[in-house]
């Protein structure tokens, strides 16, 4: 079994995970408490970015270089390439969903004339 990446990090390295946790909690809090659809959309984007930050952090190795064999220069320590691929995919997905959500918000504003989430509730019961 490979040793986990988190164990290799010093205590300062773990501080960045605390930032991720704070960002996730902030985003979730904003989604629940804010009433404006655009602010909720921004909070979702923050949530996506914080998860991407988490993925990037997982691939970090102290002193590592880029994971391309003929460009890494001296030294044979490279950062992990997999999380970077995961992050790129996740960024594209987040872009698509943000764009779709904004277009839905435009349509909602056209139909309901408001962006207040408390007033967009024809479907209930």
């Amino acid at each position, binding site marked *: 079994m490979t040793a986990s990446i988190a164990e290799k990090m010093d205590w300062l390295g773990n501080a960045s995970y605390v930032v991720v946790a704070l960002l996730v909690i902030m985003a*979730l809090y904003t*989604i*629940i*408490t804010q*009433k404006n659809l655009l602010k909720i959309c921004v909070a979702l984007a923050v949530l996506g970015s914080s998860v991407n930050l988490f993925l990037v952090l997982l691939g970090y190795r102290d002193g590592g270089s880029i994971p391309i064999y003929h460009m890494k220069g001296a030294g044979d320590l490279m950062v992990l390439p997999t999380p970077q691929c995961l992050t790129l995919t996740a960024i594209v997905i987040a872009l698509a969903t943000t764009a779709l959500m904004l277009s839905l918000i435009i349509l909602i504003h056209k139909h309901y004339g408001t962006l207040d*989430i*408390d007033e967009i*509730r024809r479907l209930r*019961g």
Partner: protein
Amino acid sequence: MWSQLDTGFGHWNVFVWLFFFVIISAFALWVRSLGRMDYKRSTEQDEIFWSGNEVPEDGADFSVPASSSYWGFRVAMEPLYNLLNRFHNGNASDYAGYFIVTVASIGVLVLI
């Protein structure tokens, strides 16, 4: 057998069930055939009885709407339905809140 199913506790065979269904239907039809056949066709004995009133032309005037079904059940369970309707209030931030609370409680429960 293709239709025989052994569930580990008992057996189920759809064709045995269908066989008994046919027997019972035959019996029911026999009971029905014992009824009176001597009523006069196409007289007022054939008409729909609607509390002695004239039957309206349009069926919409004397059909029972779906919302009236199980009225008693709904009234008897009214406190529960008030609660459930408050739960399904259509507010998306409440729905997101239910989701996050459930995720959090599942996350705490799995740590036990």
